[in-house]
């Protein structure tokens, strides 16, 4: 009974719009804070860091969908995965734009030099570049055009992206020896990726874990 009730909530027509609005709340807060000068003494730094944090949070949420779906036997959860993934990209775009605009004054020659020079920037930028084709192939026609198996292989890049994101965050904090937050995100991602590895080793991965999302019909 409870399971059925939860399923009907997940399948409710308002569920996706509601998630969309929720996912936009951090952006709305940051936008308001910037306009109303509520972001402290260094608003540029606040915006760049907050958008980076939210990129990482949405990445964790996106990667949590499949394990949650299986563990709770709620296949309907997969309806939200694409939107969460696209919000990851949305916040990554804001993060990169914030750096380019506030830190580098949109001086593209300087930005190119900066990316080449500093490993921590390079790693973050590489993560963003890898995320771009994933966002670009998230709509149904792209999935159909690629075919489910190739689409799925491409989207496995998200595991590399997760690693790059953590390394980027780790290096950013490294000089200050302050790894408490990095450890929290690393632990969450390790659990989410470890769960997949564990299932694969158990042979459970013989059944196509992510198939429902790869099938355009149910990805709507």
């Amino acid at each position, binding site marked *: 009974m409870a399971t059925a009730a939860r399923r009907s909530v997940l399948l409710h027509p308002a569920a996706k719009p509601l998630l969309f609005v929720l996912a936009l709340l951090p952006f709305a807060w940051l936008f308001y804070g910037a306009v109303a000068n509520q972001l*402290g003494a260094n608003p540029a730094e606040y915006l760049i860091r907050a958008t980076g944090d939210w990129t990482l949070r949405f990445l964790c949420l996106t990667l949590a969908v499949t394990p949650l779906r299986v563990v709770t036997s709620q296949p309907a959860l997969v309806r939200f995965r694409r939107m969460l993934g696209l919000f990851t990209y949305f916040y990554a775009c804001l993060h990169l734009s914030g750096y380019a605009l506030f830190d580098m004054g949109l001086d593209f020659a300087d930005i190119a030099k900066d990316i080449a*020079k500093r490993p921590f920037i390079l790693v973050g930028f590489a993560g963003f570049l890898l995320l771009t084709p994933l966002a670009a192939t998230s709509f149904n026609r792209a999935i159909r055009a690629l075919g489910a198996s190739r689409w799925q292989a491409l989207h496995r890049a998200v595991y590399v992206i997760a690693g790059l994101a953590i390394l980027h965050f780790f290096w950013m904090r490294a*000089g200050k*020896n302050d790894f408490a937050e990095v450890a929290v995100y690393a632990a969450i991602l390790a659990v989410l990726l470890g769960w997949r590895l564990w299932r694969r080793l158990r042979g459970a991965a013989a059944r196509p874990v992510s198939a429902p999302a790869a099938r355009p019909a149910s990805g709507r």
Partner: protein
Amino acid sequence: LPSTKSQVPGAMTMEKVTDYKDASTYNNFYEFGTDKDDPAKNAKTLKTSPWTVEVDGMVKKPAKFALEDLLKLSAQEERIYRLRCVEGWSMVIPWVGYSMSKLVERVEPLGSAKFVEFYTQADRATMPGLRSSVLDWPYVEGLRLDEAMHPLTLLSFGMYGEVLPNQNGAPVRLVVPWKYGFKSAKSLVRIRFTDQEPKTAWNKAAANEYGFYSNVNPNVDHPRWSQATERRIGEDGLFAKKRKTLMFNGYEAQVGQLYAGMDLKKNY
């Protein structure tokens, strides 16, 4: 905290002073947490009275100074200094204090003394940040003796005409305006004269990122970011281009000769 305007050359920049609110709420003081707003939130517990500063090591007259005596050791001056943080932001702050050299002269360093070490209070009961192992406590900073003797090197007791707020290093701190902010140790309890280059806290934590000298230098980048530019807190708007960082934070005319002939890329 009463004071008169300083006559020391370079000690009174005409630039716009940073808002007191920004200067007292956006701080690095890891003994009270690693976020910028942690010190303002957590430093209330710091007990600044009674307070003594022990001055020892290679000096003829080692002494324990009660804060009241230290306050009266020389006339209090107001000095408006640029502050450049190693993280790439800057402020302009009106400090109150007197030249560190006044205290150095009082204790009469031996001829063998070459460096001065500064120790920040490390009290686990009142400083919650000490529970984390971000740095090797107590916080230690250091200067060459001639740097400590430079008239711009300030022993500070106040800012904005008032006694220092706890989060800014009450009741007594160092201010070295041509070096990155972390060189200016806060809440001092001990000053020691030595012939060995001090093992400073940030240098121990990451030697490749934070050198002993840590002079503000736009030509020597931090390994993870450029030091060529800085954001002036409260002034450079979101969309303003960051301003160029000046050699020795703009104090080259006053302190440049301290480093004549030194390779500042090696001695960063």
